[in-house]
């Protein structure tokens, strides 16, 4: 292989770092997006037997949003292997213990259980907030778009916009404003 071909090979199979903001995102929908980047399925050179997966940094995993009453209803099972070692943890309990765990498990469970899964998970770097080591953030060259827009709260709008907002209806005379 000539020197040029060798460099061409490195360029084609270079691992890219992506960043994903998980604030207000459904972790199970996000997992379907993230796994494609982790496995390299977004590349035209993808083949299950070539190792072309990318790294993904996930920010703000503490601010994920589960749909419906999943925080209360979703249960994570663990068994220590000893008799009576079974334990069931609710999603909100798990999230309190480790704010990266719900998303990590969502991505892990979205992939098929084969030998590659553990190595693919190694390329996923989840942070509960936006504090990412500089040397990691320096690698990033792409941002993955969120699956749904972040809702904006009333107290996050500037004071001016709130007061200037057009008045659509008149309150009834007997309406008590809080």
């Amino acid at each position, binding site marked *: 292989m000539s020197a040029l071909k060798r460099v061409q090979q490195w360029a084609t199979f*270079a691992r890219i770092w992506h*960043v*994903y903001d998980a604030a207000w995102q459904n972790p199970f929908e996000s997992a379907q997006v993230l796994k494609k980047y982790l496995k390299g399925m977004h590349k035209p050179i993808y083949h299950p037997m070539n190792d072309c997966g990318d790294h993904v940094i996930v920010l703000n995993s503490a601010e994920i949003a589960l749909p419906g009453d999943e925080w209360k209803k979703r249960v994570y099972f663990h068994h220590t292997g000893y008799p009576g070692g079974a334990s069931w943890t609710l999603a909100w309990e798990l999230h309190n213990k480790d704010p990266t765990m719900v998303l990590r498990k969502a991505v892990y469970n979205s992939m098929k259980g084969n030998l590659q899964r553990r190595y693919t998970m190694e390329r996923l770097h989840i942070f509960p907030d936006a504090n990412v080591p500089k040397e990691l953030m320096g690698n990033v060259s792409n*941002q*993955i*778009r*969120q699956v749904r*827009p972040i809702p904006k709260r009333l107290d996050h709008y500037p004071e001016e916009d709130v007061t200037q907002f*057009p008045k659509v209806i008149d309150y009834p005379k007997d309406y008590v404003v809080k």
Partner: protein
Amino acid sequence: MSNKHLFLKAGLINTPLQNGVGRYVCQLQRVVLKFCKNNGSSRGMRDFIESELVNYAKENPGVVVYLKPRRHRTAVIKAEYLNGDAQWISCRNFTQEEISKWMNLLKTQSNNNTGTRLKKLWHTDHPSIQGPWTPYTFRDPKLNLVEFPNTEWSQPADMTNTSQDDLVELFKKQKIEELNKNRAK
């Protein structure tokens, strides 16, 4: 399901040393015709040897032709190629025409094609003119100047206006119209 393909030699469609461009070298090196002198299953082979073999050998001086009579055995053609491949064809009860067709095939092909599994049904020495894909081909050049993480590049691509935005727009339009009316007065 059979796993026969696992034992086949894997290869691509190719021409040895650009054969046929400028000069042609027959890739068949040696052919051995094995037959029985009195068994009925070798009948066609014997006919071929009687009537066509001498011409075949004369037309192809580069091919070594051997005859191997052996008693009470099936007729067989064994061919060896310049690349080292060997091909074995059972000619039991073949007619003379069938054998002459097989001999023609052996003469014209460049290796043992039935003993090779083609990895692909096509082959090219120049797979791409624009060069192989890299992560940076087809990339939006705007991304070069972006500082990550970036809120604008994080939003979903199909963001539409909310009804709230529409309401504010309508209100602004209405205000401008009123202003214009006042000015006209």
